[in-house]
């Protein structure tokens, strides 16, 4: 019907108060820009921090836990009564996974699984002169480890492939290397928990960004570690699995632990605190963003209110010549929505540009060797939320002034002169 007329009137009123309208619009633009840039930046940092841990953590890890045998011999003798047994010690069960080869093969055939890689964790002492420094040497399948856990990203000096190419080689954690004063090409001596000694050649440094890890962990090829421990080629203490969908991990861990008769940890259980941290951080960024939008909503509310006081006459005339309260209401709602839509759209564009800008800012830190600039998350989700929110806030900012305008009694205004 007369939408064209109503919009035309709304537009004319807006143009008449051009400066104020622009100020209101700039408020919306600013808050949407900040909302998008802030959320993108915060979540970029978030996923980077999470990635620090989660990228390198297997979704499911199979291993044999050192624990007492739940089936003690006396239970075979007398099943009827309760037993009180003291001083049970863990049984000398093997740390390696029985049948590791077939298990890995069957895992890699599972459609849910992205990749499987074996690992040996060996407790060692690094012998430096008369001092022994405790440490862990991880025996890894270099190619698969690089594939699944971005191993290469964390090797700051040297080449990962040297682990395969050089006999008895090791990539030392940066912290451990610093303590041992070990340069690339040096030989270091390690002693295993069983007492075997071996000389390893340093081919690179490893830096994860987590000091505790870098002070202790080193990497060698799986064969080297098997040799070091004096174990056969089938010896594997951990099987690490990466899934296509991380959320399946807990269920699959339970299921497969049953099937393979080994212990299984899933990523959610091991790293529960990360998820909480992520949630809290994004909650904070949403809270800040929404506050910005609400503040700009009040800006629009104020300007519309002022406009109504200034345009009392106009409203009264419109009513006198036959516009209903609803028409007047619509006019002011439309003004609010025009400010919201235009301001919101510009805000999204500027927010995107701000994101691109932030992404260019150099950000280099010792702890994060792979990060060169600030990370920004350009997830469309934030743009959709910001867009919807800009329209919703401006609508409500316009709603009350519009309602007030629709209630204006033309007789009061006209007779008041």
């Amino acid at each position, binding site marked *: 019907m*007369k939408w064209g*007329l109503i919009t035309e009137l709304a537009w*004319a009123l807006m143009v*008449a108060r051009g400066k104020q309208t622009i100020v209101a619009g700039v408020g919306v633009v600013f808050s949407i820009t900040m909302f998008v840039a802030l959320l993108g930046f915060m979540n970029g940092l978030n996923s980077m921090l999470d990635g620090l841990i989660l990228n390198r953590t297997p979704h499911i890890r199979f291993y044999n836990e050192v624990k007492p045998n739940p089936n003690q011999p006396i239970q075979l003798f007398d099943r009827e009564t309760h037993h009180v047994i003291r001083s049970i010690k863990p049984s000398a069960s093997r740390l390696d996974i029985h049948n590791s080869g077939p298990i890995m093969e069957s895992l890699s055939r599972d459609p849910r699984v992205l990749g499987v890689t074996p690992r040996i964790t060996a407790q060692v002492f690094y012998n430096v002169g008369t001092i022994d420094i405790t440490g862990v040497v991880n025996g890894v399948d270099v190619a698969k480890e690089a594939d699944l856990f971005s191993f290469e990203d964390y090797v700051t000096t040297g080449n990962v492939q040297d682990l395969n190419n050089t006999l008895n080689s090791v990539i030392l954690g940066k912290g451990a290397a610093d303590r041992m004063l070990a340069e690339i090409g040096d030989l270091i001596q390690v002693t295993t928990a069983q007492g075997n000694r071996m000389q390893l050649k340093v081919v690179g440094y490893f830096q994860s960004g987590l000091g505790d890890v870098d002070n202790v962990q080193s990497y060698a090829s799986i064969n080297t570690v098997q040799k070091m421990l004096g174990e056969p080629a089938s010896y594997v203490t951990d099987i690490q699995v990466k899934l296509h969908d991380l959320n399946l991990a807990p269920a699959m861990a339970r299921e497969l632990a049953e099937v393979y008769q080994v212990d299984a940890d899933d990523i959610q259980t091991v790293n529960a605190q990360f998820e909480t941290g992520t949630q809290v951080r994004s909650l904070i960024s949403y809270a800040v963003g929404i506050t910005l939008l609400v503040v700009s909503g009040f800006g629009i509310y104020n300007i519309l209110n002022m406009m109504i006081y200034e345009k009392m*006459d*106009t409203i009264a005339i419109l009513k006198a*010549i036959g*516009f*209903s309260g609803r*028409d007047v209401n619509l006019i002011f709602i439309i003004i609010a929505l025009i400010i919201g839509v235009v301001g919101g759209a510009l805000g999204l564009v500027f927010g995107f540009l701000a994101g691109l800008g932030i992404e260019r800012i150099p950000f280099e830190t010792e702890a994060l060797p792979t990060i060169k600039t600030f990370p920004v998350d350009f997830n469309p989700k934030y743009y959709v939320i910001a867009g919807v929110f800009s329209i919703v806030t401006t609508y409500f900012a316009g709603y009350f002034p519009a309602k007030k305008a629709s209630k204006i009694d033309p007789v009061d205004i006209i007779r008041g002169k």
Partner: protein
Amino acid sequence: MQRSSVLRTQNVSKYFYSPEKTQVLKEVCLDVKKGEFVSVMGKSGCGKSTLLYILSTMDTDYEGQLYIENELVTGLDAKILSRIRNEKIGFVFQFHYLLNEFSALENVKIPAMKLGRYSPEEIEHRVMEKLRIFGMESHALKKVHQLSGGQKQRVAIARALINDPLIIMGDEPTGNLDKSNSDIVFNIFKELATEFHQTMLIVTHDDEFAKGTDRIIEMEDGRII
């Protein structure tokens, strides 16, 4: 032949409540026939403007009944009243009350666009025709603030006429004009009455103006005498 009634009131009373309850209209009965040019006179404060705003359907807070074309209007929904104002009543105020944001042409156009009886092209044509009657066609595209007081009032009358209303109501339409302009405006009203048989009800305290009308309704203390 009895001319049909355009506007009729039956025992309309109105009270003002602040500062204290006072009765401003006392059981006013009034009948305006089709084609009549009626003026309402009285001292200021006698309730003539109050009566006019009740008749215009803008003021709904009164007792008694108001009929437009013999149909009861009292108590109708605000939305329907807006429609009646748009379609059947043309209003001319003491001040021009044009919309400053628009040109003269657009000001006259708005009520017609709101009514939507004609296409936009036809409306434009009709607006120009009305403006031509009042010698305003050359000022059609000027903004309101570029017009003189008399010109503004002529545009306001054109706006009141654009939907061919049943009745034109005026609240001291010449009250704010100098002698020559108020003569022009009066002549317009007179012309409307004689040539177009437009029904009109004009509130004024200008004796000369009133003398030129068909019928003078005099009010005192909220009563018609």
